[in-house]
């Protein structure tokens, strides 16, 4: 009997001192805001994180969950509060009707004349999305732009990741740092910087004119070309880092064995390196593809009027048509479009792992 309770993972985790201290730290931070002039955002962020950890822990204890579940409960709680709850709020708005009120949609239920409660919900908004080719085109166009951007990010990112992974140590760290360095500047500023490069009177046009390659400045701003550049540039590190993490683990002995057996470098790459790096390719591609579908800022700043993406369509529904219910329906459909491929990929990966 006593052996069973000693099974690893079953023992009671001691309440970590940090957990007990969490509420005290939050209170101290709130006081600190007034006396030490700590920035409000910092207090909120640290406070929220601590309360989350503490709340998850205490809740788990109260319900009497085993400790290993409690460890999972914290991220689960996070997901529920910041993904599931907003998702349901959105889903509920997408079933409402628009009206001039605050908030500008119909309530979920209404008291009928006979005192009973009537639920107001309809799938009309989803039907509306199908009735107009605009939405389907916007989804397709977003998928296309995201797919092409991902492809280019892969083509550019793979050699870079490969080169970094093959570099000797001191240089490797420096190269990695260079990949991460742009993150130290605001994303918005970096996209703005591209405007300076691409515009009519910009760096690229001036250089080309100076070199005598072109007579008339090229129109690059407000084109799809600029959008691709913006997306590939912005998300390139998300492609390089997982690829690097994968390639750096590649066993050099495999490559040596291949060349000992007479394989050319090209054959070795195609039959050994590339297949082994598929998980890195998949991870990197997902990290680029998924945010690129919903991208709003880059096409807004660099794209032309005919760059049709779902992010902009959503903006139009929400802001200029003032139709929150239809906007919510657009968002829900987009979420489903993004989540389904992830789930499919997850299941493929799981199956692969199970086979191994």
């Amino acid at each position, binding site marked *: 009997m006593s052996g069973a309770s000693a099974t690893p993972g079953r023992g009671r985790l001691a309440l970590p001192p940090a957990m007990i201290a969490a509420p005290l730290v939050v209170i101290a931070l709130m006081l600190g805001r007034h006396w030490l002039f700590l920035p409000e955002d910092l207090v909120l962020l640290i406070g929220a994180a601590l309360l989350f950890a503490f709340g998850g822990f205490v809740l788990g204890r109260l319900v009497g969950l085993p400790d290993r579940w409690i460890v999972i409960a914290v991220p689960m709680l996070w997901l529920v509060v910041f993904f599931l709850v907003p998702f349901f709020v959105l889903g509920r708005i997408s079933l409402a009707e628009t009206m001039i*009120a605050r908030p500008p949609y119909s309530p979920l239920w209404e008291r009928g004349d006979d005192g009973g409660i009537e639920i107001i919900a309809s799938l009309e908004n989803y039907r509306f999305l199908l009735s107009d080719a605009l939405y389907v085109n916007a989804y397709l166009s977003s998928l296309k732009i995201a797919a092409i951007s991902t492809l280019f990010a892969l083509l550019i990112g793979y050699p870079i990741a490969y080169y970094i992974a093959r570099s000797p140590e001191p240089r490797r760290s420096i190269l990695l740092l260079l990949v991460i360095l742009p993150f130290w500047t605001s994303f918005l500023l970096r996209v703005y910087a591209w405007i300076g490069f691409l515009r009519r009177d910009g760096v690229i046009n001036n250089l080309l004119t100076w070199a005598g390659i072109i007579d008339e400045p090229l129109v690059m701003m407000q084109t799809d070309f600029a959008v691709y550049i913006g997306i590939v540039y912005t998300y390139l590190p998300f492609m390089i880092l997982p690829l690097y993490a994968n390639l750096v683990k590649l066993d050099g002995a495999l490559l040596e064995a291949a060349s000992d057996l007479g394989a050319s470098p090209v054959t070795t790459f195609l039959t050994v390196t590339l297949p082994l790096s598929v998980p890195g390719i998949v991870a990197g591609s997902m990290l680029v593809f998924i945010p690129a579908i919903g991208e709003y800022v880059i096409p807004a700043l660099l794209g032309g009027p005919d760059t049709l993406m779902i992010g902009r369509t959503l903006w139009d529904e929400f802001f200029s048509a003032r139709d929150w219910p239809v906007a919510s329906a657009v968002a829900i459909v987009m979420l489903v479009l993004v989540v389904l491929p992830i789930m499919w990929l997850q299941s493929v990966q799981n199956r692969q792992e199970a086979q191994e």
Partner: protein
Amino acid sequence: MKRSILAAAALGMTVPAVAQAEGSLNLYIWSDYITDAAIERFAEEYDVDVTVDVYDSNETLEARLMAGATGYDIVVPTADFMARQIAAGVYQPLNYDLLPNASNMDADLMAEAASFDPENEHAVIYMWGTTGIGYNIDMIAERLGEDYEVDSWSLVFDPEIAAQVADCGISFLDAPTEMFPAALAYLGRDPQSRETEDLEAAAELLGSVREYVRYFHSSQYISDLANGETCVSVGWSGDVFQAADRAAEADRGVNVWYAIPKEGALVWFDMLAVPEDAPNVENAHAFINYLMEPDVIAEITNYVWYANANEASVPMVDEEITSDPAIFPTDEVMDRLFTAVTYGSRVDRVISRLWTGVRTGQ
């Protein structure tokens, strides 16, 4: 309902954010629309901490107001948007006892604004202006001849003329409520029409020149006109004058000017209003009253190049501005101007969809 769930979920997070220090004022206003000096002077005189946030479209402002609990004490909506927001219960009535300077306001203009807000119950005019054409004088002369006079919407709405200037860059406001009335005026139809047939005709006109439009944006054109990056912009009067001012300062041979088209143009009023849930109502009134002091508002007009509606301030405004008919239009021009209308939600949808069609060709 929704908000209480979220609030409960947010645990203690919102507590420090909601608590406002005594003597603060949160202003939410259009970008480049007030001077730092005016704000600093108010902060000093009244011992109030002023926070300023900016937006560049009525749509952004409205979405935040409709979501509620913005924490802002004063916002500056355009009158036609404000009419709908009043209907939704966004604003509180002004307490005119706290606004003695209201007597400085131009009665005629306030009466115009009252068509959106009966008896000016919820707001007073901050600035007003027109939606017309900003253009690069030299680039237009180069393409259409020295004698061409920019005085008609045909510069941007006639495909033959637009095609000739397309290479130096045409921009439209990304605001259907500004572009449709302009197109209707050019077509000789009622610019205030809500009829689907009229709106479709306007959309067809706008679509016919779409290929000559480099982009649709509501603030980008200020710097682009000033740099010579674009040469024609359908834009707001004061914004174009700011572009002209910046171009003159940069002194790189770019000359920008503004025209009110002869077919008529939209006249709009930006209003000072206090949200219903404003945390600092008294300070909000103090600030509105301060902005109605003639010298304060004159100084702001001298900076933003928009006309204010403060009769007593006119003598203090630079003569360069008061004598310019594009800013203070003559009575004859005034007669050709029209105000915007507030569309119903069905028409909003029609316009929004038509506008997406114009912009994307879809």
